């Protein structure tokens, strides 16, 4: 079996670029949805808020600065080929160094504290990142990553539903969670829903769902229909852009699923603001 060597430097550069790019340049899927939403709004206030957001995202791209001051905590989903060896400092240290350089050299905000309860001292380089790694066959490394802002992260929720709750239970929990979040997560939002697995798996799926283009759908038609139905219902809530009322509370709903236990149906809702920043790279 051939082993492929990848240099730490290659990982560092790729990770650095991912985080800088996703903070400066909003995805086409989000920009298209924002423009469509603005044209669809009835009130001047809702249209003006969306115009401000659209203008903001253009300014960020043009001036190569972050679109939001909260450039997030770095989260990476890694598919690591089982025939890859990373030389030098090794894979995790290289990812950490890439994050450090992105947040330092890219003028991104350092928002991570060393200890959650007692010290809360800023680590000053936005490390450590949160890395979810899966070993896959092959000689490549695939990374899907994003900077997750906490205005919306704080509005996320998880519930251990049981099988009898059915699809109606899933809908109710998602809608209740979005309604509870109200104006706080910087609407219009992207709603990531993780269904199945275990307690922690559902949460990971929900985060991963926010890292998927809102122009895409779940491959299973039943879940794709559920994504569309939830989006429609969320947009009848009236929360609207910036929570000031309107028809655009969410830009997209993405669902990710996984097999689960006979006794369970975990559902996690990870909310992302309109600055839904993510990117991917294959090395």
């Amino acid at each position, binding site marked *: 079996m051939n082993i492929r060597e990848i240099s730490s430097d290659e990982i560092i550069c790729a990770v650095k670029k991912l985080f800088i790019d996703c903070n400066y340049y909003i995805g086409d899927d989000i920009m298209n949805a924002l423009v469509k939403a603005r044209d669809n709004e009835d009130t001047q*206030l809702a249209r003006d*808020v969306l115009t*401000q*957001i659209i*203008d*903001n*995202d253009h*300014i*960020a791209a043009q*001036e190569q*600065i*972050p*679109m*939001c*001051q*909260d*450039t997030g905590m770095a989260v990476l989903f890694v598919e690591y080929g089982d025939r890859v060896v990373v030389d030098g400092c090794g894979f995790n240290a290289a990812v950490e160094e890439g994050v450090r350089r992105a947040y330092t050299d890219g*003028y*991104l*905000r*350092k*928002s991570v504290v060393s200890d959650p309860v007692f010290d*809360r001292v*800023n680590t*000053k380089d936005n490390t450590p990142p949160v890395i979810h790694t899966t070993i896959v066959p092959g000689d490549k490394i695939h990374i899907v990553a994003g900077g997750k802002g906490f*205005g919306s992260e*704080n509005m996320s929720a998880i519930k251990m539903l049981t099988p009898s709750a059915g699809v109606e239970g899933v809908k109710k929990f998602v809608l209740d969670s979005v309604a509870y979040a*109200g*104006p*706080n997560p*910087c609407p219009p939002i992207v709603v990531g829903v993780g269904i199945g697995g275990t307690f922690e798996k559902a949460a990971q799926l929900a985060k991963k769902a926010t890292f998927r283009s809102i122009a895409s759908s779940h491959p299973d038609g039943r879940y794709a229909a559920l994504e569309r139905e939830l989006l429609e219902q969320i947009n009848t809530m*009236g929360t609207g852009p*910036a*929570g*000031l*009322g309107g028809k655009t509370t969410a830009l997209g709903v993405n669902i990710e699923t996984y097999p689960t236990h006979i006794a369970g149906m975990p559902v996690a809702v990870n909310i992302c*603001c*309109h*600055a839904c920043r993510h990117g991917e790279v294959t090395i």
Partner: protein
Amino acid sequence: MKKINFPITEEQLGGLRCGDRVLASGYLYTARDAAHKRMFELLQEGKELPIDVKGQTIYYVGAAPAKPGSVIGPCGPTSSYRMDKYAPSLLDRGLKVMVGKGARNDEVISSMVKNKAVYLIAVGGAAALIAKSVKKVDLICYEDLGTEAIYRYEVEDMPLIVAIDSEGRNIYVRE
């Protein structure tokens, strides 16, 4: 669009109504979670605050770093509800304007009505655009908190919306 100045005059403040859109110029202080916690603890110990908040404006923000040649990096509002625990004690000390995003709790709103204060919002996530209205930045205290330190911004035509006015009318409460 109304033009207002910070620190705000009693007359201007009294004229602000929920839903008004304003362009604000003048000086404001920045403070978010960690700086509020420190100020709150000082007040609980009966000590003086590092800034005199009487008549002043506090903007809930932690800016991104400035690129070389820029005054400031992107600096949009952070969620205000996290400051709810601390806000009434600052309002009791004379704070007149809070700037952030999102809802406030009933205690804050009651304290605003009692103390005749207003809550303005900026559009969350419009940080690069808002940075254009910041003309000067001075570090005031708590430098060790980095982005969470207290700064004084000089702003010009900062686009804001009156979310809760001094009579307690609330933009987030809709029939």
